[in-house]
């Protein structure tokens, strides 16, 4: 037990910093800043979820928005049609999405590299087309979630926006702990073995198919939780906000920029990308969105070409340089 607690120590500094930023936001009272922070947390969670399948297990998916969106829709629909509490909706979404991801993923596991990516894009697009043409689910206009009295019980905080951040931070902590737990466990070993060399992994007795299924299931469930929280925050679900291809690219990019396969990579990526996107959209607006998007795209290309290991690689090196004793930080643990 003590070892487990010790392992969690690297989490303290980042979480402490995030909490400090939250207090700052609270003091400033700038709603836009608060919203950006909340989105950072949500995207970080989505990125962590993606990374478990992609960075750790090597199952690169460019269709994760469908899992994120599935969670958002399940939670949204359960609340709007059946009055079911968002927390329960979140759990239901996680369960459903995890199972669907495993079921749909199973036949795709033999696909190699590019073909797997294409399959994820195809599946995600099917979901998008089906939902957008399904009037009962709101079609293209989506569904507006009902406004409920403010409070943790309802997971709505109309009165105090910053509360979304605190709950979100709690969620992020949970995600980081889970990510850490998975990495340090035998499951994590299986995942990395499958990623590094599937054939060798099978040769030493790693159950490849089971490992991939679990990776996708966990990733799907966590993505759904992030999606459900996003729905709770924006009180709106629609194909273009939660099922879009570009969202899939963003989620993947958050993890890649920060450092795929690392614990804090997705968080770092979110901290850099989300404010960048939100502020440039706000500043440039309208057609300027194209300019913001172009800058975003250039980041993707530059990172992919020049430092695909992401920012955590630099952080890891800096941390190691500052500690001649050589105690590895969580950042470099999984490279």
């Amino acid at each position, binding site marked *: 037990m003590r070892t487990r607690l010790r392992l969690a120590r690297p989490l303290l500094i980042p979480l402490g910093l995030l909490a400090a930023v939250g207090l700052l936001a609270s003091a400033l009272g700038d709603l836009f800043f608060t919203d950006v922070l909340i989105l950072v947390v949500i995207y970080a969670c989505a990125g962590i979820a993606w990374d478990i399948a992609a960075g750790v297990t090597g199952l*690169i998916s*460019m269709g994760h928005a469908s899992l994120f969106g599935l969670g958002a829709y399940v939670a949204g629909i359960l609340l709007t049609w059946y009055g079911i509490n968002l927390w329960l909706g979140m759990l239901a979404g996680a369960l459903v999405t995890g199972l669907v991801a495993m079921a749909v993923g199973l*036949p*795709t596991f*033999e*696909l*190699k*590299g*590019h*073909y797997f*990516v*294409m*399959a994820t*894009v*195809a*599946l995600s*697009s*099917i979901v998008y*087309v*089906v939902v*957008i*043409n*399904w009037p009962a689910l709101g079609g293209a206009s989506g569904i507006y979630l009902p406004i409920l009295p403010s409070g943790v019980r309802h997971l709505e905080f109309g009165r105090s926006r910053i509360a979304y951040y605190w709950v979100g931070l709690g969620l992020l902590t949970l995600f980081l702990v889970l990510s850490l737990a998975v990495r340090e466990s035998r499951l994590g070993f299986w995942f990395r073995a499958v990623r590094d060399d599937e054939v060798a992994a099978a040769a030493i007795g790693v159950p490849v198919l089971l490992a991939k299924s679990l990776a996708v299931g966990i990733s799907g469930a966590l993505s759904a939780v992030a999606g459900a929280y996003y729905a709770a925050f924006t009180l709106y679900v629609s194909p273009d906000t939660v099922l879009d*291809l*570009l969202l899939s*690219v963003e989620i*993947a*990019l958050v993890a*890649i920029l920060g450092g795929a396969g690392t614990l804090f990579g997705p968080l770092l990526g979110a901290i850099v990308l989300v404010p960048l996107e939100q502020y440039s959209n706000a500043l440039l607006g309208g*057609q*300027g*969105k*194209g*300019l*913001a*998007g*172009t800058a*975003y*795209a*250039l*980041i*993707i*290309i530059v*990172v*992919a*070409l020049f430092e*695909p290991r992401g920012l955590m690689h630099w952080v890891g090196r800096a941390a190691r340089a500052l500690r001649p004793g050589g105690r590895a930080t969580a950042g470099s643990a999984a490279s």
Partner: protein
Amino acid sequence: MTNPLVSVLTGGLLTGLVFALISLGLSLLWGVTDLINFAYAEGLMVAMYATLVSSRMGLDPLAALPLVVAVSVLLNLLIYWLLIKRAMRGAFFTQVFVTFGLLVLLRNLALFVFGPDPHVVQRSLLGGTTTLLGVPLSQAELVASGAALVLALALHLFLTRTVLGFSLKATAEDREAAALIGLDTERIYVVTWALTGVCLGIAGDLIATFFAVFPTVGDVYLLIVFAVVALGGLGSIWGSVGGGVVIGLIQALAGFYLPAPALKYALVFLVFFVVLLARSQGWVGKGP
């Protein structure tokens, strides 16, 4: 009064040939270089915008064809030299992200320069409809379908009757062996990317005569094109034609019978998914 099914099928055939026209470039690119260019459909979008711009300057799309092709070839070569060459040296992960990044880049550039609204190329020589077998068909689509067959034939002749074309085929079949027997892979790649530019230029120009131009038009065609190529076989010209026709017929019939016609795309994507899985099992020719 024609049987509605006949008009659905003829429409599907035409649309299918149009799909084939767009897919020829990807089939070639994918077959020869083994690279999956996720930004391929954005190249189509660029060609369509080039046609739009020429049309605004007074050039009929048919007259603008050489210009549009030149723009498209230039774009593809730039993409190859600046991005793809480097990306091919990296892990497949790099290739995926570079081409996705390119997709986002081209789309947003178009959004920034032209705005999100759809534009229509002024109808020119290709306006109106003709009737074939009692079925009214769009002249522009007919020309595009015809062009698909002509281009396919031209590519086929190039690949089988010229030394350069033969080298492309050899590289498509076995890249290592081709390099071993002394084929200049670099030159072959450049030629392939240029050819892809030609195909996209022709396709974009002709399609712009009957389909609206907007920044996300690539969304519509990307998976369809992938489906056509997956079905028809990588690098196979006539396979792409056949694949295009099949996909065209599938989506026409689906649109006719399904409760919500727009769901036909979901069916096409599903077909693509199934073909991907089938190929990985080796059921149908060379596969993943």
